[in-house]
Every structure is written in C-alpha cells, then in structure tokens.
C-alpha cells in the first residue's frame, strides 16, 4: 500500500530476490483515454464500424457514469502514485516503465497480464466482442511479443457465450496467452449453464480460466443492497468470489469439465477453507438436490481451483495465514502483486510468514508454471 511504500527504499535490487518469480496479476492499461473510457490505443484494432460507434456512442456498462467506476477509488486510477510514467501517462501504459519499475527489480520471470478496461460486461454484447478482441490484439502487438516474460489473458465478452468461444478458439495454441479472463460480477452466477461452453473451450485449448475481481453484472454488490463505500466494494470482492465459486462447484462445472483450471484473482484465499467446510456440511444434508456431484464440494477446490495472493490476508499473528493456507494446500496458492494498483503486494514484503524452501518455490513460481502450462 502507498502508505507503507513511502517508508522504504521502494525498489529491491535484482540480487535481493534470487528466485525469478511468477506474478499472476499485472495490469497493463491501454494509453490515452478516448470516448466513454475506450482507449485510443485500441483504435488500430477496431473495424471502422466499431470505431465510428465508439466515437459517437462510447461504451456503457451496468453502472452510472460515462467514465470512472461506480465507487470512487482511493487513488487516481486506483494506482500507486509512483507508477505514473515519467511523462505523466497512466500506470501500466508503458512496457518500458513497467519493466524498469517492476519486472526487472522484482525479478519477475513470468508475468500474467490481466487487462481490466477491456469491454467485458458492456451492455452492448457486440461492442463487448469488438473491444475484447481488440484488447487481445493489443496485448500481442504491444506486450507479449515485446517481452518474453509476459503472457496475455484472452479477454472474452463473457455475457455472449458463442462470441467468447469463438475468441478462445482463435487464440488456442497461441503460447502468448496463458489463460481466459473473466470478471467476478457477471449477469448470472458463473456456474450457470449459459457459461459452460466457455469452460469447455478453455479446457479444450488447455488454458486456465482466471476470474478477476470487479465487473458490472447489474446486481447490487451485496445480498442486502448496494454498499456505500469503496472499502465495501473492495472487501466485497471476497464475497462475490465465494458466491461464484459456490455456483461453479454446486452446479457441477467441475464434473462436466473435470480438467478445468480456475484461478481466482484478487478475491483473497484465506476464506476458501471455511467456505469448503460450509458447503460440505450443508451438502451432507441436502445432497439429494445435487445428485450430479460425485465428491464433497470442498474436494473440487483441492483439484480445480487456485488463488492468487494479493491482497494477501494479514492476520495477527501472521502464522495463522500459514495455517489457513495449509487447510487448502500450498499447491493452490499463486503469488501476485496487482502492479500498478495502490494495494500492490511487494514480493519482498508480502507473505511475512515462515515458509519452507519448497513452499516458497511453489507459491512464488512453480504453482504458476503448472497451472499456466509454462516450461
């Protein structure tokens, strides 16, 4: 967090972090904001039809404002103030600066790109399709082809399943992409059958499915209506991700696509054990409703679901975090920084718990290499 970073040297030297790490949540951002939040950087990848549309109508989501987000962020663009480029550009908009500030000094050997302002969940599904496709082209041209440490995420217009499948099939076999990216807050819980072809296509392409916090599904962000504050939204990503995971497990997604690898990004991980216990306890009484489940609900977490660390929970004493991880397994945990956002977890400072060398290697690198089929 900003407040902490100020008291430190800021950057670590390469020598300090010996292990080349995998950062499973990095946010590149198309430079230059255009109409309604569609960046001009994406224009080269849009057809004339959609260029004209964007220039005239912009893009709308299921939220109130033309630009910006429903809850005012704590920092401009929700970013570290030191992550704006030297010429004042948006954080995450320059590969050169990202490498200099983050990838090089933190010795990032594998960086998973998760572009967030990419038209996912736009009210107009055709526009969502056009912008997500353009974002994927942009990732290839300006990022993954330029820096071999980086892998892109196939962003898909997830409310239009057929279009999403088409985009995934287009990227299948392209090693510059490591996963399909969805956002948490969708029009329906993500376990519902309308989304299953996306999972089938991802598994067929041997791509993981990352599900990142945020999105605009149109539903209030709690079961009791809309929260008032940004802190409620940020804490609430954990609740949204619990709900979508419950949906995916109880609907039987992992029975239908047993090889599916789901990565939950930025929603926390310490809650996973308790959620598994609750599902198991209730399922024991109610399983007649769910005959398609062949195993206890928590078991699907242990085989099909991974969690990125940032913003990693910080109990007092810290040892409790290790205990919470033990409950789900060290093999489920993927390190992430969330660069360049304000709540960035510094690899040198985050996870202040005792880990064995094997656990460190798993969390900071090997788990990611496995789930993303790298190396």
């Amino acid at each position, binding site marked *: 967090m900003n407040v902490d970073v100020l008291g430190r040297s800021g950057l670590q030297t390469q020598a300090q972090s010996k292990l080349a790490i995998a950062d499973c949540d990095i946010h590149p951002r198309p430079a230059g904001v255009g109409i309604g939040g569609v960046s001009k950087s994406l224009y080269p990848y849009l057809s004339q039809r959609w260029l004209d549309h964007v220039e005239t109508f912009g893009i709308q989501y299921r939220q109130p404002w033309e630009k910006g987000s429903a809850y005012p962020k704590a920092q401009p663009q929700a970013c570290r103030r030191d992550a704006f480029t030297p010429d004042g550009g948006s954080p995450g908009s320059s590969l050169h600066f990202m490498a200099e500030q983050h990838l090089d000094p933190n010795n990032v050997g594998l960086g998973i790109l998760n572009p967030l302002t990419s038209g996912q969940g736009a009210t107009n599904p055709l526009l969502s399709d056009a912008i997500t496709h353009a974002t994927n082209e942009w990732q290839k041209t300006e990022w993954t082809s330029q820096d071999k440490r980086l892998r892109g995420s196939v962003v898909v217009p997830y409310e239009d399943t057929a279009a999403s499948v088409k985009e995934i099939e287009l990227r299948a076999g392209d090693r510059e992409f490591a996963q399909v990216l969805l956002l948490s807050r969708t*029009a*329906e819980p993500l376990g519902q059958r309308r989304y299953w072809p996306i999972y089938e296509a991802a598994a067929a392409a041997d791509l993981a499915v990352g599900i990142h916090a945020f999105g605009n599904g149109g539903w209030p962000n709690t*079961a009791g209506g809309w929260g*008032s504050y940004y802190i409620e939204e940020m804490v609430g990503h954990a609740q949204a991700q619990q709900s979508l995971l419950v*949906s995916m497990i109880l609907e039987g997604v992992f029975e239908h696509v047993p090889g599916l690898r789901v990565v939950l990004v930025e929603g926390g991980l*310490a*809650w996973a054990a308790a959620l598994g216990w609750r*599902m198991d306890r209730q399922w024991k009484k*109610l399983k007649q409703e769910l005959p398609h489940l062949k195993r206890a609900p928590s078991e699907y977490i242990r085989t099909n679901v991974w969690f990125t660390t940032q913003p990693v929970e910080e*109990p007092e004493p810290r040892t409790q975090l290790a205990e919470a991880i033990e409950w789900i397994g060290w093999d489920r945990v993927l390190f992430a920084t969330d660069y360049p956002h304000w709540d960035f977890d510094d690899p040198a400072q985050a996870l202040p718990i005792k880990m064995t060398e094997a656990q460190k290697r798993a969390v900071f690198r090997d788990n990611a290499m496995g789930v993303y089929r790298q190396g």
Partner: protein
Amino acid sequence: MTQPAPIDCDVHPIVPGIETLLPYMDDHWRETVVRRGIEDLTTISYPTRNPLSFRQDLRDATGRTGTDPATLGRQGLDPFGTQLAICNCLYGVQAQYSEDLGVAFCRALNDWIATEWLDRDPRLRASIVVPMQNTEYAVDEINRCAPDPRFVQVMLLVGSENTLGRRQYWPIYAAAERHGLPIGIHAGSMYRHPMTAVGWPTTFTEEYVNQAIAFQSQLTSLIAEGVFAKFSSLTVVLLESGVTWLPAYLWRLTKFWKGLRSEIPWVSDPPGSIVRDRVRLTLQPFDAPPDAASVMRLVDHIGSDEMLLFSTDYPHYQFDGGDPIPEGLDKGLAQKIMAENPLRTYVRLKERETTP
C-alpha cells in the same frame, strides 16, 4: 465441572397457518387476509419439505413440528435441560412489498408470540419482529413491544432492502439501544435482491450456503457506516450465520481498513477489535472443519471466547444426535457458550420476572 443449564439463543416457533394470526389483527386487516385470499407467508428461505427446515426425526404428520410451545419444549428444550430460549419467528412477514401489510403482520406476530408462547412456557423469550420495509414503523413496533421484558432482542433479516449499516436504519438501532435490546440479524431475506452479489442462485443448497456470505457483507456495512461508533452500547448478534467464516473475513477487512480508513474516519478501532467487543454469533450451524484439531485452531483464529452463544436452531436440521456442541471444542469454552455468554449479551435475560 458440571455443565450449566443452557440458554438457547436461536429457536424457531412455527406459525401453524395464517388463520392463527387473525385474532391478533384488527377488522380491516383480518378482512384483507380473508377477502384477498392471502394463504400463507411461509418463507422460501425454509420451505416446508426441505431437509434443513425441520429435523427429519421430529416431523409430525403435517411434515412440520414446533407449531406449539408444548412441542417446542418437549423436543427443543427438555432434551438439553435448557433454562431459557429465545424465539426467533421466521414467518415471511418482512417480505411483504406493502409497508402497511408488513406492519399489520409484524404486530400480529409479536402479539401471538407473547400470548401463545411466552405466556405458556416461562422458559421462553422472544425477538421483536419488525417491519423492515419502513424504519419509522419498525421503531414504533420496538417501542410498542419493548415494555414487555420477555422481548429481549430486535430481529432483522440478513437479506435486507438496503445494506443494514445505512443511516436510514439508524433510528432502529437507537431504539434498540435505548431499550437494552441487541440487534439480532437472522438468515433469511426480504427477497428484494438475490442472496449473492452475482445473481440468483439455482438451488436451495446454493442459496443457503450463500447466507453466510451475505452476513459478511452486512457486517462490513455495519462497521463501515459507523453503527458501532455511533451506538456505543449496542450489541449485534448474528443468528444462524455460520461461524467459521469469521476470521478470514476479518483479516481482509482489516487489511483494507488499514489502506482505506480515510474514507471512513469514524472507524478508529481495528475492525477485529470492534467485532470481538460488539458482535456475537449463535453456535448452529457452526460449519465445522472435518477434524477436531482444526476446530480449536479456528477458535484460536477467532481470538475470543466470548463471542459464541449456545443455540440448537430448533427445529432446523443442523446437527445429528443430541449434542449441538461441535466435536473438538474446548470444554471451558463450551461452558462459557452455554449460559455465561448469552447472559452477558442479553441484559434482559437477567430479569427473571415473566410478566410485563
């Protein structure tokens, strides 16, 4: 160490049928129920045939149980030697879209509970059911019922119309605090919104699992809006919320409080310490880990032996056999849960007179 006689903080009297409430309604509303053919308000949170709604071994010929105090006493209190039990009636009155119907049914329900339950078994206490549709009416109902000391709590549902911390609800908290009544938030919903932040669930199981998640959001709301800062002697009890989600939830909330507290400057204490001081949870369902060792580890993560309150959740099916205490729970803690923690939480339980 002899176990103290337990105080059961969550039992559910079942309304036998809407006609039961008619004697407690005035002519206009009685006529409304009859003329408009309002048949029943059993909430879909607890459908009659559902395995969770009634323990299978307790059901009567109608498929239900707990529709009269004698049965509740025989099945829900006697087997545990319960000295006192708090009735939380879950008839779906808060889901009425009309504020007027909401008030009419709440008044009838509270009067029915006082007359046909509290008057008949001296072990029983109750929560005031309030029309969540309208804060002013809810306050009126609290003020109307509070003179009867056998009402020991104000009950809200976790699935509210707006987040419960919002200022529109504060007069309810002011009234509760003034009368020495904790705010109990129970599983269930007004069904204005889905039980998840990502749309309507498909199955009962999915919805019920999500109730625990909804409690997390409501706790965030109560803390962030400053309810605990404003009402310094108010206690909030989470009823049938599940328990084991609490530590991990607090870790994340505390982390973001550190980063974002300038947005909510009135929250000057770390959320964990607010919750440990001011929030209580009923025991069932505990949603325990599968092994006894993890149970105590989890209790350690909660970081307080004062937060849990004994409950059976009668007649809901939450545990098998006759012991609601989760396996692995430390004996000393189990002892505190039984009566000491409930007595500290509900000041009115100390007043033993049973007539208003």
